[in-house]
């Protein structure tokens, strides 16, 4: 009896549930409800993708990284540099950003993933610092400290122009996020995704049953890097600006907090944590950006000490 129930549960796991439509309904409702905040909305959607890509690593594969912004920054800079130097086609720009970030993920993953724990953490940080330092020193092409300016993004499919109200940008980000979410959801529920959870929970056992642990970790690291690259490229294309803050340690840290506010390893934590964080930041951080960090830091400490599962974890506890 229990075996059958377990099999059922596994089979039902990947079926779409009505509740999963909620983020998308909310995103479309937000478009009509807050027409003057579409630029912020597009940034939120793109950042959800960034947090989602980090969730694949943290929540599923159990790889704790402090350098995820490296891939975000790489994607943003590649898309940005293309658009600033005469190739403003957005979708190929996005793919180029994804490709570059994925390649960086693959190459750095080959080195970084040989270890676990602190050495891994430290190496992800070093990779991100190298990307930031490279962007800083190659100022003739990246703009260095001043940021990359002069991007010209062409209309999507040659038709849909990026307007100043952010209508196009909002839907562009929403559609790309939706497609990437479908892919991430598919990965997570596939046998490959299940084996990642196995690696996170008990790596020795996965070795023992013959799972190619190293290769699987490398594959998810590359996929996650590519998704983070798409996210960076989206923000670069919709804001027409890339700066050194893109591959910074602050960004690698804040994506963790956005994710943890929502809940890690749930695929939906990003959809809750990112809007909460970014709306709060928009309201409170503009006056005194430095003190904003105090509240963010305090929130991180409080979440870790008292509300480990984030908002979704609290909801679970409430339901029980």
């Amino acid at each position: 009896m229990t075996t059958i129930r377990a099999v059922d549960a596994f089979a039902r796991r990947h079926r779409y549930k009505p509740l999963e439509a909620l983020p998308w309904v909310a995103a479309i409702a937000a478009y009509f409800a807050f027409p003057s905040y579409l630029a912020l909305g597009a940034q939120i959607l793109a950042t959800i993708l960034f947090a989602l890509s980090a969730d694949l690593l943290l929540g599923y594969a159990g790889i704790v990284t402090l350098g995820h912004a490296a891939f975000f920054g790489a994607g943003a800079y590649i898309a940005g540099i293309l658009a600033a130097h005469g190739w403003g086609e957005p979708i190929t720009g996005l793919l180029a950003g994804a490709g570059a970030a994925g390649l960086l993920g693959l190459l750095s993953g080959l080195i970084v993933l040989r270890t676990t724990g602190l050495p891994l953490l430290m190496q992800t940080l070093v990779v991100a610092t190298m990307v930031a330092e490279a962007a800083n020193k190659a100022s003739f092409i990246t703009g260095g400290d001043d940021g990359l300016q002069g991007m010209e993004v062409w209309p999507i499919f040659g038709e849909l122009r990026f307007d100043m109200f952010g209508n196009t940008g909002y839907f562009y980000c929403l559609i790309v996020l939706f497609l990437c979410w479908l892919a991430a959801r598919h990965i997570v529920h596939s046998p490959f995704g299940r084996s990642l959870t196995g690696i996170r929970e008990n790596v020795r056992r996965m070795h023992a049953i013959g799972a190619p642990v190293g290769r699987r970790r490398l594959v998810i690291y590359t996929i996650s890097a590519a998704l983070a690259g798409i996210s960076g490229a989206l923000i670069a294309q919709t804001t027409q600006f890339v700066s050194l803050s893109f591959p910074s340690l602050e960004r690698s840290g804040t994506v963790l907090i956005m994710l943890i506010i929502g809940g890690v390893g749930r695929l939906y934590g990003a959809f809750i944590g990112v809007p909460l964080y970014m709306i709060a930041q928009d309201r409170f951080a503009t006056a005194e950006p430095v003190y904003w960090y105090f509240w963010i830091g305090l929130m991180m400490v409080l979440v870790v000490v008292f509300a480990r599962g984030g908002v979704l974890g609290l909801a679970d506890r409430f339901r029980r």
Partner: protein
Amino acid sequence: MISLSALVSIGFHGLAFAMVLYLISVGLSVTMGLMGFVNLAHGVFAMVGGYVLTSLMSRFGVAFLPTLLVAALATALVSLPIERLLYRRFYGGEELDQVLLTMGLVFMSVAGATYLWGPLQQPLQPPAWLSGEIDLGFRSFPAYRSFLILCGAALVTALWLAIERTRFGARVRAAVDNLRMAQSVGIDTSRLFMTTFALGSGLAGLGGGLGADLLAINPSYALQNLAYFLIVVAVGGLGSIRGPFVAALLLGIADSGFKYLLPEFGAFFIYALTMAVLLWRPRGLFGRA
């Protein structure tokens, strides 16, 4: 070709920088090895030491040597409640929790330091007897950095003696080697953790104060220099006293060398070198398998 005098100069500056890096990072290495705790906020303690030193000297005109002592003690005192109230809950826990907790503390420190001391960097005014140069006959050296090197060497020796020759040191080594066995033979590891943590933080505070000239004291200190401290620990190997010393020497000398010879590449080579070392030895030079 680089001249001999340039080489001596690189070596000298590198050595001074290495001493500062070691003083700050050794506590981090021990806490990480001993408690298995990823403490990204360790730089905050160095920053506290730096702020205590610079403010006592510039605002209250206290002499240099006593303030050094105060900086170390104050930092150790600040670190105690943090360890008891926060860190202790997460020993042996999940890495992600530790990362988030300590990153949160770093963010809070950035805002807190800006609130208390403003966004500008705090200059260190060395006392008269340490400004200027010392003439050694064949060559003269900047007095402050010579003092740094001597001071660092003395502290390193004292620390090694403490770890190798005292009862306290024996307990620390036992707990690093085998925590459960150490507990079984009756070592109060909770108190040991507390003492070691405070000692490591005090040393970091001292290093931050002494090195205020090299690693400028400003609100983003803990964030800016995090990579350096972590490199020293990861390259040296966790839980080791000797490893971080070798790593700090390598990093200090390589850093001043690259910045002197190839300034246009900044710190890029340092990071590449770090990756190369970790590729060769993932657990660091002196890390145990």
